[in-house]
């Protein structure tokens, strides 16, 4: 087990994340699915100590996040969709600064992904499209030999070709033993590459299983994964 989330609770005035528990393993891709506002980002932010949960524990590599934050963050990569950092700074300068923090920064991997994503370092994030911002965030997450990748909506805003490329990168990383954890509301992404499915609905983990077990347990005859998820979510909404 490479990461473990145990009994995470976070209460907001209009939303509660209730008793979220799951684990991530090396060389597995976990798709974290749920509709907008289901609690995906709150869970991810809690895993990164950006949000302070009311209760629950997060650990990576057998170490509790609390007290080992810097050490753990050296070994994990995080990407946050379309958020743009320092919109008016040159990408080259942002990268140079980020690079100095990581002991395991890999220039070869950096150049490979930079070329693959066609990112021009002379530009500023302000000059990038939404899709390219996603790619820039991914580039930073992929360039320091992370053992766990935590990606919040990494495919949103990407064109179908780039999405496909990214899912292929996930498969390569998985083969290298990296644990990939990505949130999405695009079910076909999960269908294409996830080994495990973590389904969150209204702040609770509604299902956690391997993709095969998920289909066996929850899908009805002739249903696609998308049909199953829509039915489950519809049921939850009417519950």
């Amino acid at each position, binding site marked *: 087990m490479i990461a473990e989330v145990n009994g995470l609770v976070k209460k907001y005035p209009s939303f509660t994340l209730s008793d979220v528990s799951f684990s991530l393993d090396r060389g597995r891709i976990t798709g974290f699915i749920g509709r907008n506002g289901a609690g995906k980002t709150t869970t991810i932010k809690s895993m990164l*100590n950006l949000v*302070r949960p009311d209760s629950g524990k997060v650990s990576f590599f057998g170490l509790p996040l609390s007290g080992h*934050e810097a*050490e753990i*963050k050296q070994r994990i990569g995080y990407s946050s969709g379309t958020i743009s950092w320092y919109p008016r700074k040159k990408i080259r*300068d942002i990268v140079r600064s980020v690079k100095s*923090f990581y002991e395991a920064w890999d220039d070869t991997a950096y150049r490979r992904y930079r070329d693959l994503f066609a990112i021009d370092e002379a530009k500023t994030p302000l000059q990038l499209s939404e899709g390219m911002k996603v790619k820039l965030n991914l580039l930073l997450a992929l360039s320091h030999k992370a053992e766990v990748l935590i990606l919040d909506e990494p495919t949103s805003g990407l064109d179908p070709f780039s999405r496909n490329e990214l899912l292929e990168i996930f498969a390569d990383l998985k083969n290298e033993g990296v644990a990939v954890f990505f949130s999405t509301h695009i079910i076909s992404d999960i269908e294409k590459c996830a080994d495990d499915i973590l389904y969150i609905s209204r702040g609770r983990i509604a299902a956690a299983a391997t993709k095969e077990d998920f289909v066996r347990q929850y899908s009805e005859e002739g249903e696609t994964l998308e049909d199953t998820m829509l039915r489950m979510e519809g049921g939850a909404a009417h519950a």
Partner: protein
Amino acid sequence: MRKLLRKEMRLAASPLSYLFTAFGLMFLVPGYPILCGAFFVTLGLFQSFQAAREANDIVFSALLPVAKKDVVKGKYLFVCLIEACGLILMTASVLLRMTVFSGSAVYRSNALMNANFFALAAACVIFGLFNLIFVGGFFKTAYKFARPFVIYIIVCFLVILAAEALHHVPGLEMLNAFGTDRLGLQLGLLAAGIILFLLFTLLSCRKACKRFERIDL
């Protein structure tokens, strides 16, 4: 911490923070409330907080492989560095007025407070108050800064007013000592100013670290 300071300087800082340290040279201006120079240095720092907020700097920093509280310490370190630069220029100005320009008529007939070590002590107190009220106040939320800045401005100008007025109070004339007059007293006051700066900054930083740990970003 060195890496965080470099990140602050390269990515988060507004160029105005560097430029406004030059207001430390206002200590050379005769017939002017010289402590406004200290306020302008902090005004430049305020621009960096504004720029950092627009650039999502706090969340970016919290995602780096550092402990969450180190993000706060990095910010304080940058603030102290800029304040130190301002203070160096103020000290150079004070020393020039005490020595090379000690015979200058415009400085001798100065209507407002003299540039002496007491003035430097007051500048240290102003910087300490900026750290205590504004920087500490900012880290209550890590994004709201209008209220702490307004409170700081009011307090800062009350301090400037008090520093300018004190030497008119009977018995406190020595606060406005010219050149090297009453040097022992002046140095003692400077030491007190530095101690207050350190006290305000350390108290504020410690509290901000604790608060920041509890903030949801």
